[in-house]
């Protein structure tokens, strides 16, 4: 590209007319092997920009503050509300505590998230990309920092084209330093989800934290800095799979940021007082291009690069207000509406309730219901049985047979529980232990919030059929009567 095309126009935000902005990623100029050209998005003002600020503040606050929330779980248990405890193999989320064998709840959450993003896409296009995706949020933050230090679009363009000077170097250093601090804070916050935040913070600064903590802080500092600082729109365009999937998720009734070409064309510059007859509302001022963080021209239609950040809506609405035309030349709209209007229909129709959105909604409700049911009826006592494989069975002096088992008693409550172990389902089989209660049950203590291994022996008479026989172990809490059971096998070798 000819650098003179980037020659700065004077910063006069009042003048809506003709900003000299090139859409560096515009459809017509897109060439895969061309070098990336820097984008210098201009600050937009308007309801969508405000919404994006609000979303950014809320999301960043959630990310940075969550690990510092406390939640009392009793003595000796972590008091962090949200904690992924790899060493203790627990996931804590406020009142929920999950064990590793319960990762299906995480699977459920992921399914919900996928359906949620399908639903939001079918309704409002890429709202996730535009407002909530971490890549968008941090890039937006980085661009804002850049704007604070180097100025808005035109000042940045001038600086980029200026020869090296002390001032330029000073600004660049300040910007990258600020970026690095944000990146380090981001990487730093991440590790707090995996350990007690206050003590980890102390350890991080005294050098006493685990090497893995520093490693993760380092890696995430690096990725934040690179992805949000230097790669920006390239992540969305080249690395992220979602824009490709998005094409399948969207249909003619889905809303997305759209240039209403039915109203805008034919475009052309407009002098004050000129008639609006026989021409479109677009005055070709290129403000929508100037604010676009993806470097595209929305007037080229729906594009893979467009993250639906809606900043061009704000920019164009400003222009429309200045030239006294109705707002909404660029707006959330659907293909169907444009087609309808091109055919002469006046009204804009929004069809939010469609088979597709209903289906996504119903699926989400079902998955959520299953998860809530699962959580509500979650057992706090469970048993797993592992049969000893060598020897497969033991023949005893009196001719009877013995199998040995390791029972894993899972006690998910926070107090030790005494349980009675019994064996059922195999005629004549009984437990063998030093001491049994009157009903032939073995009594064991399942330690609080842990898995207790108990080895038991089961003896069955010689008449047990050869091969694998079914039997069941069950445990019952001596106090609460809660029970759990698990099937296993009793192996017999028949006669000698």
């Amino acid at each position: 590209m000819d650098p003179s095309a980037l020659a700065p126009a004077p910063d006069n935000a009042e003048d809506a007319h003709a900003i000299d902005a090139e859409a560096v990623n515009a459809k017509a100029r897109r060439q895969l092997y061309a070098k990336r050209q820097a984008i210098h998005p201009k600050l937009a003002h308007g309801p969508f920009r405000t919404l994006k600020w609000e979303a950014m503040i809320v999301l960043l606050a959630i990310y940075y503050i969550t690990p510092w929330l406390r939640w009392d779980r009793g003595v000796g248990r972590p008091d962090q509300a949200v904690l992924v405890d790899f060493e203790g193999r627990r996931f804590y989320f406020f009142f929920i505590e999950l064990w590793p064998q319960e990762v299906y709840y995480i699977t459920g959450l992921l399914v919900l998230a996928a359906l949620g993003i399908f639903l939001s896409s079918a309704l409002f296009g890429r709202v996730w990309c535009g407002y909530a995706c971490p890549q968008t949020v941090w890039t937006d933050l980085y661009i804002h920092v850049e704007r604070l230090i180097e100025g808005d679009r035109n000042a940045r363009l001038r600086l980029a084209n200026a020869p090296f000077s002390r001032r330029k170097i000073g600004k660049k250093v300040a910007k990258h330093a600020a970026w690095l601090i944000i990146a380090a804070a981001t990487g730093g916050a991440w590790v707090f989800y995996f350990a007690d935040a206050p003590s980890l913070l102390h350890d991080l600064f005294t050098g006493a934290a685990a090497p893995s903590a520093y490693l993760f802080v380092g890696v995430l500092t690096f990725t934040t800095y690179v992805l949000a600082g230097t790669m920006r729109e390239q992540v969305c365009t080249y690395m992220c799979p979602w824009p490709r999937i998005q094409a399948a998720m969207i249909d003619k009734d889905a809303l997305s940021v759209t240039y209403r070409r039915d109203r805008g064309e034919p475009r052309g510059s407009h002098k004050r007082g000129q008639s609006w007859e026989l021409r479109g509302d677009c005055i070709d001022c290129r403000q929508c291009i100037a604010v676009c963080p993806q470097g595209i021209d929305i007037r080229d239609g729906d594009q893979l690069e467009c993250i639906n950040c809606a900043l061009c809506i704000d920019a164009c609405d400003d222009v429309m207000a200045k030239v006294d035309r109705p707002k909404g030349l660029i707006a959330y709209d659907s293909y169907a509406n444009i087609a309808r209007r091109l055919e002469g229909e006046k009204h804009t129709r929004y069809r939010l309730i469609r088979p597709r959105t209903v289906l996504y909604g119903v699926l989400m409700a079902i998955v959520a219901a299953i998860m809530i049911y699962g959580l509500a009826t979650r057992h706090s006592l469970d048993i797993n049985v592992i049969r000893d494989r060598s020897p497969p069975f033991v023949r005893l002096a009196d001719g009877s047979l013995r199998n040995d088992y390791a029972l894993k008693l899972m006690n998910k409550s926070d107090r030790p529980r005494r349980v009675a172990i019994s064996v059922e389902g195999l005629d004549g089989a009984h437990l063998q232990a030093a001491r049994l209660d009157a009903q032939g049950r073995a009594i064991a203590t399942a330690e609080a919030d842990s898995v207790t291994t108990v080895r038991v022996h089961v003896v069955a008479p010689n008449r047990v059929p050869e091969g694998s026989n079914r039997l069941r172990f069950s445990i019952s809490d001596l106090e609460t009567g809660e029970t759990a059971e698990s099937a296993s096998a009793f192996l017999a070798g028949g006669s000698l």
Partner: protein
Amino acid sequence: MTKRERDHVSGTETTGHEWDGLRELDTPLPRWWLHVFYATIAIAIVYWILMPAWPIGNGYTKGVLGWSDRANVARDLQALEAGRAAMFQRFATATAADIANDPALQEFARAAGESVFGDNCRTCHGAGGAGAPGYPVLADDVWIWGGSIADIEHTLRVGIRSDHPQARMSAMPAFGRDRLLTSQEIGDVTEFVISISSANARLNADANAASRGATVYAQQCALCHGGAGAGDRTLGAPSLRDDVWLYGASRDEIRRQVELGRGGVMPAWEQRFDAGTLRALAYYVHDLGGGEPDATPPQASPAEAAPVQQSALR
């Protein structure tokens, strides 16, 4: 003839090669990549200086840090042994009752015993003490020399028919090979032995032969195996009343044992293991499922019908 020229879109030179109108960009390595590459070379040189690196003659360059994996392993092992020493010490002096009342001690014994068993005993006695013909099953409740922890520990210490001066010794005569009994008498005594054992239910001893065999048994076998075949642990004479046979459970195999009087050898482990390890191993074997109470029974731990193993995994 190649013609290098500049590509106007990317601003990069081409290699000058052309295939059907396609030309190839001669894109240089990215600067950052090149710098990383140079940095790895620098790091390698620093590494040679600091760490063991190059083979020379009959050795290698040691590096100025003096790092040695061999020394590290030795140090780790030493630390490990030092860490375990206290527990083994407690074991060496623990009584059966101490062990019965101390879950921590049990858990340690089970882990240590399992590892020692796996390295030394499993070859013959099988994983989990499953046994093999000629090598007794250790998981069952049939014991030739006694099944209390003390008995098992003693057997471990001195071995069986080993070179230990106090080795447990027993020798069954080879009634057939040494022609101490006729073939007919051996057949009869086999039937008698089957008739007094629980194997009778499946092998159906010949009543006439068994009654003839009873006389032979009383003269030749009863001294060690007892008049009713109950065996004698002080002599290492197995019980003949159960249906567990060291050298095989068929009629022919039982007869062959009368003919050959085989007896295996178990090494004495006293020299190999310290007292703590021996006791842990004895506990492990006892704990496989068929262990018998010691002469002085361990105090009953009050409420708990203590299952054999308890260990908490946090």
